[in-house]
């Protein structure tokens, strides 16, 4: 029991060092559970039309705000992009009918903690009527610490990238927790030099349920 208590106390102490008075969010370490489970701790979501190919939608999810070149996705977690159409642009409410949802779910296998970061990725895109599966290894010669695969109009990357989030932590805390004026001068990026694990998906827009979409990312432990 002492071991279990210690197992809880240590991460809590770590979490407190990241307490709301010095937050790294946008979604980094936003709760006790995500602080304990960093491979499933989503840090950011991006959705945009490809600047190179306007027929493609790009979705990016990042996890693990303290990743290194040897960091791995969890083999016990499903990494999900979930997409629902929005029928009314004046209300912006996603379809309530779950049967209208499309998804991309990536799962991982293999690799050895601290020794072998290469995992086998299986990403399944459920378009509704059809499915598309993309399989690849998360380490290849094409990237420093990543791999990619493509099939049927879907391209996926998984690996370590530079953290895309940026903010001045001190000024942000001041905006949130004080009423004092905040300097508008140049700040210091709290996330400077940090890495994340990223999954990047490119998919044909014509495979999606409409032009106006609600998109979320979710990690689900199996």
């Amino acid at each position, binding site marked *: 029991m002492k071991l279990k208590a210690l197992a809880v106390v240590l991460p809590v102490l770590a979490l407190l060092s990241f307490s709301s008075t010095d937050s790294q969010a946008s979604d980094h370490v936003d709760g006790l559970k995500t602080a304990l489970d960093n491979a499933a701790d989503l840090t950011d979501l991006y959705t945009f039309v490809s600047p190179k190919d306007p027929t493609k939608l790009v979705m990016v999810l990042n996890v693990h705000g303290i990743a290194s070149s040897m960091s791995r996705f969890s083999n016990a977690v499903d990494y999900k992009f979930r997409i629902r159409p929005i029928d009314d642009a004046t209300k912006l409410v996603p379809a309530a009918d779950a049967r209208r949802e499309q998804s991309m779910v990536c799962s991982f296998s293999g690799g050895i903690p601290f020794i072998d970061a290469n995992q086998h990725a299986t990403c399944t895109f459920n378009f509704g009527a059809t499915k598309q599966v993309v399989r690849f290894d998360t380490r290849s010669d094409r990237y420093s610490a990543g791999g990619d695969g493509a099939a049927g109009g879907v391209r996926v990357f998984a690996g370590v990238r*530079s953290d895309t989030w940026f903010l001045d932590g001190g000024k942000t805390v001041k905006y949130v927790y004080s009423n004092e004026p905040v300097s508008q001068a140049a700040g210091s990026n709290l996330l400077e030099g940090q890495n994340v694990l990223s999954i990047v998906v490119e998919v044909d827009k014509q495979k999606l349920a409409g032009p106006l979409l609600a998109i979320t990312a979710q990690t689900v432990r199996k």
Partner: protein
Amino acid sequence: MKTIKAIALTFAFASASLVFGCAQQGESAETQPQTASEDLVMFPGSVDHVGIVESTTMMLVSGASDFATVLDSYNQDDPFALKTGNYQAAFAKNLRKFDVRDGKSEWTPDQVTSFSTRMASGNYQVIDTSMPCDYTNPHTYLEIERAQLTGKRHQTCGGRMPNEDAMDVTLNFLIRGPAANITGPGALRDGVDQATEKSSNTFPYLADLNE
């Protein structure tokens, strides 16, 4: 300071992983999924979801004590079907607090109700793939929501692009209201305008890792 915290976190995670992993192995290894045995903790179900920037640590919580209570519950909910009644009052209260941060009140009561309801019912980004995304000059994040709140038609794809300064967008949106821009007189900023490395315009877009 950041480095010290990263080391502390890594140490804590590694220590807990070893301790907790041993405890799990000794007590119930046979009942654990094989694939999960190397992981730190094994809570089944949703661990986290992400859509709107700072939906949790700025917009939902009121203090450090909420981290272990409100946030875990929120993160475990279905992001397309949040338990609205559990969160709407908190989103509305914090939004009203941000609104007067600059000594002025720009959010109307209807806008507060509309946005707090939206945040309490789902955590997602809205993108219109038929509208333009200017990747080299990104100003689309929350544009669709801001247009909806102010009774206008949106002009961009919305969504979120990696090089956009989403923190400045968020600060101006919450404090100066849905009609405010992030540039021009009175605009607020945190003084950090880009990540360690900018994202590129070719797949996989995000910059290579920092060694």
